[in-house]
């Protein structure tokens, strides 16, 4: 490596490190606060590592002050159900848009693109009214149903399927597969990288979603983790930031683990589909 390219590479990395540090700062404050006793959180000197560790107190408080385990389970059930149903809808739709020739295909894809532009907050009220009439408000269905059709997923998978050779689809037809068999037996295995990317997007979005659960459910047995944390804050604990931050850390942890596990495939998927 020449001296010049070393300098420029060092500069690049310094810049990236600074940006990364800036992005990580609130996260670091959260973790640091979660292990401090109450009196140290508002002390005038800012410390990353507390003088007196309060890990056990804060974390046990987090689990006992609110049914955090229930919220986490709710989160798992809801995000898993959403992702499963999304895949069930997305893959056949994306396959049809990418590989089948039918009247109105371009128009259908145009609608998909158009729907990408609609923020879901905009349709939250109609959805709420709809769910009220069906009588599904305040249930798991209310949390899951509005997200089963993911236009983003259809778009992402369609872009990926465009790259799958037509010969492979024709070979599957010659081999005796039905169109649905082709989706599940040929396209799905080929699409694992893109599906992982979509999975991370979907799970992160719905795990962290605060807005819709706030609208859709009111009994705390259906609370998802973000709602749970907030309910926690309003509860008798008041502004007990130590346990609150501990709860927040616990909620973020599964996502972090998931991303680290899926990291390689996730990046492959993004590179494949040419998104971002």
């Amino acid at each position, binding site marked *: 490596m020449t001296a010049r390219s070393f300098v420029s590479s060092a500069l690049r990395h310094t810049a990236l490190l600074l940006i990364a540090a800036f992005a990580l700062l609130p996260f670091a404050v959260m973790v640091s606060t979660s292990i401090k006793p109450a009196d140290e959180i508002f002390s005038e000197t800012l410390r990353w590592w507390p003088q007196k560790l309060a890990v056990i107190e804060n974390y046990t408080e987090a689990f006992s002050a609110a049914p955090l385990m229930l919220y986490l389970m709710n989160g798992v059930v809801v995000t898993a159900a959403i992702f499963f149903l999304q895949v069930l809808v997305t893959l056949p739709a994306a396959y049809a848009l990418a590989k089948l020739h039918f009247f109105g295909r371009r128009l259908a894809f145009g609608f998909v693109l158009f729907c990408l532009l609609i923020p879901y907050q905009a349709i939250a009220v109609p959805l709420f009214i709809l769910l009220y009439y069906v009588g599904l408000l305040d249930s798991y269905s209310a949390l899951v149903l509005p997200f089963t059709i993911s236009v983003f997923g259809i778009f992402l998978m369609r872009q990926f399927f465009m790259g799958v050779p037509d*010969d492979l689809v*024709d*070979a599957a037809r*010659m*081999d005796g*597969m039905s169109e649905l068999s082709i989706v599940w037996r040929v396209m799905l*295995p080929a699409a694992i990288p893109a599906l992982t990317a979509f999975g991370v997007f979907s799970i992160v979005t719905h795990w962290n979603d605060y807005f819709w659960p706030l609208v859709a459910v009111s009994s705390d047995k259906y609370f998802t983790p973000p709602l749970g944390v907030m309910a926690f804050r309003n509860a008798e604990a008041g502004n007990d930031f130590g346990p609150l931050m501990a709860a927040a850390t616990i909620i973020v942890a599964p996502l972090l683990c998931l991303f680290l596990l899926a990291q390689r495939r996730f990046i492959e998927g993004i590179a494949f589909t040419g998104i971002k």
Partner: protein
Amino acid sequence: MKRIDLDIRDGEFISLVGPSGCGKSTLLRIISGLEQQSGGSILLDGATVDRIRPRDRDLAMVFQSYALYPHLTVAENIAVPLVMRRLNTTERSLLGTLLPSAKAKRKEIAGEVGRVCDALSISMLKDRKPASLSGGQRQRVALARAMVRKPSAFLMDEPLSNLDAKMRVQARGEIAALHRQLGSTFIYVTHDQAEAMTMSDRIAVMMGGEILQVDTPDQIYQMPLDLRVAEFIGSPKINVLQAALTEGDVLSFTFADTANNRVQAAFRPEAARLAGIANAPLAGVIHHIENLGADLFVQVMTAGGNLVVVRCDPGGIRPAIGDKVGIVMDEARLHVFGTDNRRIEGSYRLEAPL
């Protein structure tokens, strides 16, 4: 495509050959059922299959890109056509693998896959994924996947064009041998006239969505019915010169612009020889010499500005670039085509040298 009328005999190896975009692949896809024809009928064994789905036509196809399932091993790839046909939906599902009937069927399929692998000597590749195979190996796996079902006919869409030149010659021999051994019908699409010539019982030459001629390789080469067929088949290309017919059957290359009875005369490089200028119907200057070892192809620039290729024996007298030479053709091997490219049958004499 227009007026396609092709009668393929049982057990024959027929090639559809033509330049790219001539409709040969489309014709194959229509036969397979992957594409729907806008008119006309496809009959297999005398019964129409127009409304029958590809999988029920009892045909197997080998694709140019091989189209192997990337997530399955070689053995699983080859087993797919059998699994899809013999196991029902429940037996194919994850739980169904526990059913005794599924187990028995899978065992039977594994045996058949094994036999096909042995026949194509790819048994040692069974557990590998397609990504780790070479082009030649993938091509064999694709063949095996087609063979395992014992279809009534094989459709092949340029299966050798992704192989390098050396592998291609070898695979050519293997596919021809496979055809002799299986005795099933092979319909083989290629743009490479050499593949068509070396492997086929009959060749159908297609151009512009039309079948120009269907015949044995010998007939196609020696008796082309259309100038475009003559030009497409054979390497180096057949020589084509503008000529005029005088006195009914005398071919003249030195005709006046006003002459009637204009025709196109064609002769293959090996149907001509170099001679002295004095007694030759055609003369020119040697432009370039291609020495292929076994053959010497001499390119002669004629006075009329045409490049004519003549095959010479490398053992004979070697001409030199720039020499003035005459060209004499074998009258029996002259082809005459009308201005509409159709062959004009007859025997012709060459105009006596001036």
